[in-house]
């Protein structure tokens, strides 16, 4: 999983039927120092995250697991909202 900040929402009207009812958010992966790393990507949300929040997301087929038995065709999904993290030097 990776840390990320939700930086936006994505609206898609015409989409795969298994994507119905899902929320798509734009996330920017972060380093442990809160610096952006890599390119923003679209992730499906399963925890009620909102723009501006720090979250962690999973990559791969596992992103669809929260929607079981529906299998939305997604490759990234937000699975937790981060309260805080702590890095020890």
């Amino acid at each position: 999983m990776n840390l990320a900040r939700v930086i936006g929402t994505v609206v898609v009207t015409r989409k795969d039927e298994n994507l119905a009812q899902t929320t798509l958010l734009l996330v920017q992966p972060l380093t442990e120092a809160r610096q952006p790393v890599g390119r923003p990507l679209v992730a499906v949300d399963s925890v009620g995250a909102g723009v501006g929040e720090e979250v962690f997301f999973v990559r791969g087929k596992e992103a669809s697991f929260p929607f079981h038995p529906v299998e939305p065709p997604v490759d990234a999904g937000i699975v937790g909202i981060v309260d805080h993290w702590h890095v020890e030097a």
Partner: protein
Amino acid sequence: MQIARVVGTVVSTQKHRAFEAAKLLLVQPLNLDDTPRGATLLAVDGVGAGVHEKVLIVLEGRAAGEALGRKGAPVDAAIIGIVDAVDIDEHL
């Protein structure tokens, strides 16, 4: 599998139920000379690892779910061992 070092802890209240009671750690993948390689990532801890320890991680969903002991868990990384030592044959 990859070798990494545990560099921190993560606290999350609102999360998928598969993560309840799971420990989330920040890990930094390492090169063989112990220098950092790439970005840090989050892994669920399956072995009781602590900060500063060198660990073995899997970066694949099925294996990570098994390490967590929960099938169908939306995870893609898990700590599956604490590394005691790595011996590299310098002649190869």
